[in-house]
């Protein structure tokens, strides 16, 4: 642990802080999520640390609950995209031949349409529930995980040690789990951080456009939408979620960078 660089420590600290806040939101938040407690856009005071929002709810409370929603959806979407993408990616790489071709071409097709546009098209006919949002984001993003997982696995399958395992007569499962996975894990975990960031940005964007999380549920993108008019009167309410997203994303980036650097070392297993 003593070898963790300072930047990664900062990243780890803030990432942990945000996740804890999300987890214990009802305990930490000073007021109820949808509770109107003050006047419209009150400035910050000892009563309302960050002031109040467009209909008089405590902004800090909204931010904490918003983080809970945003982080929950992003986490679930990342887990989905990750599991699906890496399983399919390894499967395609080890199978090769037409299986690989079929999956890869389909992924190319999905990726030929920008994710946001694709999501908008789908959301124009689907109800915007949390479940649908997670499913949509997870499926769309799994294409990127698929590409990485497949590329990493293909690089490993051409190694002589994998050939040696094949010549020994090892089963496919053994080759995937014992020869390929341990060597592919680190780049995939670093990628997981980036996918999570992407999911946070994506859900925030959708909510901002009014097509994501629906009120009265709070989420960071939605808070911006609710308070954007205030900007013109010099009220910062809409900017706080921006700062929250930025710090969370930068923190995760720092951690992902560290994991990636750490694993470019050739030294086996111990690093």
């Amino acid at each position, binding site marked *: 642990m003593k070898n963790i660089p300072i930047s990664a420590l900062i990243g780890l600290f803030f990432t942990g802080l945000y996740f804890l806040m999300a987890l214990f939101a009802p305990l930490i938040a000073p007021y109820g999520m949808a509770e109107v407690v003050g006047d419209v856009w009150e400035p910050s005071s000892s009563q309302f640390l960050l002031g109040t929002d467009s209909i008089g709810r405590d902004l800090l409370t909204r931010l904490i609950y918003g983080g809970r929603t945003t982080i929950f959806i992003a986490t679930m979407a990342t887990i989905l995209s990750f599991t699906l993408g890496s399983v399919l990616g390894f499967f395609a790489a080890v199978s090769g031949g037409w299986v690989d071709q079929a999956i890869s071409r389909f992924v190319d*097709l999905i990726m030929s349409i920008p994710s946001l*546009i694709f999501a*908008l098209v789908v*959301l124009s006919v689907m109800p915007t529930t949390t479940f649908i949002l997670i499913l949509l984001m997870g499926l769309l993003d799994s294409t990127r995980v698929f590409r990485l997982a497949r590329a990493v696995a293909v690089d490993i399958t051409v190694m002589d040690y994998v050939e040696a395992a094949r010549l020994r007569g090892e089963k496919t499962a053994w080759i995937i789990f014992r020869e390929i996975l341990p060597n592919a894990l680190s780049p995939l975990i670093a990628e997981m951080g980036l996918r999570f960031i992407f999911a946070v940005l994506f859900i925030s964007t959708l909510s901002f456009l009014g097509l994501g999380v629906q009120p009265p549920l709070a989420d960071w993108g939605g808070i911006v939408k609710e308070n954007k008019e205030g900007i013109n009167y010099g009220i910062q309410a809409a900017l706080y979620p921006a700062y929250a997203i930025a710090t969370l994303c930068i923190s995760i980036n720092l951690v992902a960078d560290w994991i990636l650097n750490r694993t470019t070392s050739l030294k086996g297993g111990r690093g």
Partner: protein
Amino acid sequence: MHPILKLIAQRVALGLMLLFAASILIFGGTMLLPGDVAQQILGQSATPESLANMRAELGLNDPPVARYFQWLGGFLQGDLGTALTNGRDIAESLGGRLKNTLFLAFWAALISVPLAIFLGLLAVRYKDRIPDKLISAVTLTTISIPEFMIGYVLIYWVSIQMGWFSSVAIINDSMSLGQKLNAIAIPVMVLTLVVLAHMMRMTRAAILNVMQSAYIETAELKGMGMLKIIAKHAFPNAIAPIVNVVMINLAYLVVGVVVVEVVFAYPGMGQYLVDHVAKRDVPVVQACGLIFAAVYIGLNLIADIVSILANPRLRHPK
């Protein structure tokens, strides 16, 4: 036929196939998903009668394949159908908005592309030193904030606090170029910031990759100066990767436009699309979706073709 022409023809054919497949996906995505469009439009209180009428009007009773080819055929002839919500011709409404969107994207590209390449070069020149680290830190930040938030941060600080430029970007044909540019100044800044980071990072990586080649060392050992090496030996080999980077980021920019237009109430295609997604106006969404996909696929295709053209091995076969 010259092998390079054959390769390019193959890529173009592949691009068209991809576009065709994308159109099926967009059409299928809106038609075959479980949501009932008629119900969505009319709401829960609609009578069965009005629902049936609506379905007939939308052609929902025809087989999907027939509807798809009707739609695609119309699209190819410039007939994008009519909007459900106001019954207006979509092509007509889109025309001016597409122009506005391209106007915005054009200015953003004009500023961000040279700037990104310049900063990328600067980062390479001062690799691992302060300018490089500063540039990486700034890009890391801009990558970590969604476009719309960069928009509001700029509105707050530049437009409201400093009083520069307008916070809404409404333009119309009667405005002079100068007035238009003043109106879109902040949106252009936002878009520039959004693509700049990615473009600069990728440019830096592309140039570094070339600069680490053995032939650059050969040039150094010929006693050439850095500038001369970059101009004569690195540049010819870096064009392809840089063009690639630019194209990929322009494609990214096209998507970024959607959100930025909403932030600034800019009368472009992105805002039009988002409005009609909320209203569940399927024909409009399909038309916009396909146009965005076409631009995206087209830019990626150009990137591919440039890489082929720039490869000396393909240009001068054995």
